[in-house]
């Protein structure tokens, strides 16, 4: 649950705000909810490390008052893996975008999930490459437009959650910038899952994706999230025709499996005791 404005003062580098994102960009909401979840989990700020790649989403850590690392395009999870293994006491969070995470960084995503290393990944998913001006991404739906898909996208979109699930993540959830309170809870649960956790946070990009695809105003795009997202628990009780054209949000997976750094420490312990 979002608790209020002190959150900003307590968790942000106030002199870095306001952020660079466009009017109505959903990223600001999601970034705020990440800090809310950190606060709700009572994490020690000095032990939180936030790592990002390149793109609109990846500018987030610069504003957040933690140990922050803005890396190269797609590589956030690989840098984060190094940080986490070197110092497992750190709570490592990766903030990434749909292009950063699933295109150029796709290999790192599936292997971080497979390895089940205790990193929480929040995908600021706006279905487009925003920083470079609106090219289609691996999560741009078929038939939608981008500056590099002038006749409509013909590539199938990734379902980021299914991808993470299939690769071995122990926590998978999806929220939206509109359903902000639910998003906080999802991130909290992801942080508490000891393993590789991923939250697909559906954002809005009114400037590029919205304009290019005639999605209307910022408000129209927020309303779309409100009307089109359907909670996975609710959807389970509805007949199929009622869920058609909707996308699922909520918690999809929350299990426990051996975690990489813990397994590594076990090896170190077993050597020590010999």
């Amino acid at each position, binding site marked *: 649950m*979002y608790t*209020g*404005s002190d959150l*900003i003062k307590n968790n*942000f580098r106030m002199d870095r*705000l*306001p*952020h660079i*994102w*466009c*009017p*109505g*960009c*959903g*990223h*600001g*909401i999601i970034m*705020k909810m990440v800090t809310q979840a950190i606060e709700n989990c009572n994490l020690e700020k000095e032990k939180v490390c936030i790592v990002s790649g390149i793109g609109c989403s990846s500018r987030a850590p610069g504003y957040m008052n933690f140990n922050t690392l803005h890396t190269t395009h797609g590589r956030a999870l690989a840098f984060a893996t190094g940080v986490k293994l070197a110092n497992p006491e750190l709570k490592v969070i990766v903030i990434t975008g749909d292009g950063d995470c699933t295109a150029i960084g796709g290999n790192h995503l599936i292997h971080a999930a497979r390895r089940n290393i205790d990193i929480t990944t929040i995908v600021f998913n706006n279905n487009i490459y925003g920083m470079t001006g609106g090219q289609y991404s691996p999560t741009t739906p078929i038939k939608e437009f981008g500056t590099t898909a002038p006749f409509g996208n013909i590539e199938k979109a990734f379902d980021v959650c299914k991808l993470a699930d299939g690769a071995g993540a122990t926590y998978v959830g999806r929220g939206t*910038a*509109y359903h*902000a*309170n639910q998003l906080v809870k999802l991130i909290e649960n992801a942080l508490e899952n000891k393993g590789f956790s991923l939250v697909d946070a559906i954002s809005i990009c*009114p400037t590029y994706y919205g304009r290019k695809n005639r999605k209307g*105003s*910022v*408000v129209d795009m*927020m*309303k779309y999230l409100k009307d089109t997202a359907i909670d996975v628990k609710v959807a389970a009780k509805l007949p199929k025709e009622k869920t058609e054209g909707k996308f699922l949000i909520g918690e999809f997976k929350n299990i426990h499996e051996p975690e990489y750094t813990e397994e590594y420490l076990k090896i170190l312990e077993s050597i020590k005791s010999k």
Partner: protein
Amino acid sequence: MANPKSNKQIKIIETWCKGCGICVEFCPVNVLKLIDDKITITDKDKCIRCGLCELRCPDYAIYLEEDKDEK
């Protein structure tokens, strides 16, 4: 709507507001308005301090805060 934050007042950081209009749309009592692309409260008394404007403000430009000078 419940009013758990009744002791709080609505605050605006005008320089941070980018005029997206999200708070205006989702204000349940319609007391917010964009004037020259900046957010304004049209009727402070009608505000029920529900905090929905703050919740979804992408720019942290509108929020509820305890007003210490008021008492």
